[in-house]
């Protein structure tokens, strides 16, 4: 090493800042040899100039042009997760409260589901009972309205006509209500436009 100048590969090793057993004699040589020191300094000047080269800027519309040709597909489970996350409170106490409420609700629903599965016959019985009572209440309400409007004779006629007639009258009344609400909405819109 003392009797020759550094080889190009050895200069490269020093330029790249390599460490290790073989580099120490190279550094010692550089310290002792002005020619090799000058050689390394020149090579380092090139490397420094390269490392100072800037990145060029793209045009402002570059990202939009790229994104217009990129297919962004959000899977359903990501969308669902995001929706759930939106409902999660940010503060710790609120989150704990939400967790407790959700747990209680989940527990109640689970118990009810298990009970319904075990006692399906009882569930069907109660369902039938509830639907009968709802039907009776509906008939009473509709009957009362018809008796007020057309007299009790109309109610008797309907009872004699059965379910079909009852449905027909209910539909007719509903139509009148919808028409009245629709007309009112139309008049309201026209008034707002005028003002």
């Amino acid at each position, binding site marked *: 090493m003392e009797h020759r100048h550094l080889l*190009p*590969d050895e200069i*490269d090793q020093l*330029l*790249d800042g390599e460490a290790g057993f073989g580099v120490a004699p190279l550094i010692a040589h550089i310290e002792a040899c002005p020619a090799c020191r000058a050689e390394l300094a*020149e*090579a380092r*000047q*090139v*490397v420094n*100039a*390269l*490392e*100072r*080269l*800037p*990145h*060029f*800027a*793209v*045009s402002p519309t*570059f*990202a939009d*042009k*790229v*994104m217009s*040709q*990129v*297919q*962004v*597909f*959000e*899977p359903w489970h*990501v969308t669902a997760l*995001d929706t759930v*996350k*939106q409902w999660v409170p940010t503060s710790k106490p609120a989150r704990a409260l939400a967790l407790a409420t959700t747990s209680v609700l989940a527990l109640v629903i689970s118990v009810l589901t298990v009970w319904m599965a075990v006692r399906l016959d009882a569930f069907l019985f109660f369902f039938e009972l509830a639907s009968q009572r709802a039907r009776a209440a509906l008939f009473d309400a509709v009957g009362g309205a018809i008796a007020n409007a057309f007299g009790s004779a109309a109610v008797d006629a309907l009872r004699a006509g059965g379910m079909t007639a009852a449905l027909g009258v209910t539909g007719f009344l509903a139509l009148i209500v919808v028409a009245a609400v629709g007309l009112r909405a139309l008049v309201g819109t026209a008034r707002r436009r005028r003002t």
Partner: protein
Amino acid sequence: MAPSLDLANLPDADVVTLAQQGREAAFRELLRRYERPVFSLIFRMVRDREISEDLAQDTFIKVLNHIDKYRPEFKLSSWLFKIANNVAIDHLRKRQLDTVSIDGSPHASSAAEIEATSFDLAARQESALDEMEARELGNAIERAIARLRPEYRSCIMLRHVEGRSYEEIAATLDLPLGTVKTYIHRARHELREALEDVKGHG
């Protein structure tokens, strides 16, 4: 709507995961991080701003449309630079310009062709290279890089502008490690000679 995420502070791998989940903000973050390095690499290979932007766009469209195929054991930047280098080399091959020299293509057979393929700094007042005018050495090295062979150019840019290791460059460019070392050594040597010429004339 996705919840707000501080994408700028996430590592590449996490941003890629979010992009794989279809979040547009993650795609845009990757673009923001790499649009300049990728464009600069291509621009220094191709030396034409408009074409370089088109090629950089192609690079990102290829990568972002296949983000689901990204393997996390590799650096995203290496994948991007690999595609960028490939599109630039393909373009140069199509144009049959092994070297885009300020003195014109080596394949030019007439004075008109030499003029058409020459790299005229004065005529590119609006080009990105104007940024270099103020710095003599920077300008000289840009001109010297333009004279290098394309394979030397990509190696030296990745090594010294992007700060990649020899191993990363070898993996990015699909070249043997020894070849990468040789290319970088030769590129440094040629650049040194070019700069010495500049100093000699100055």
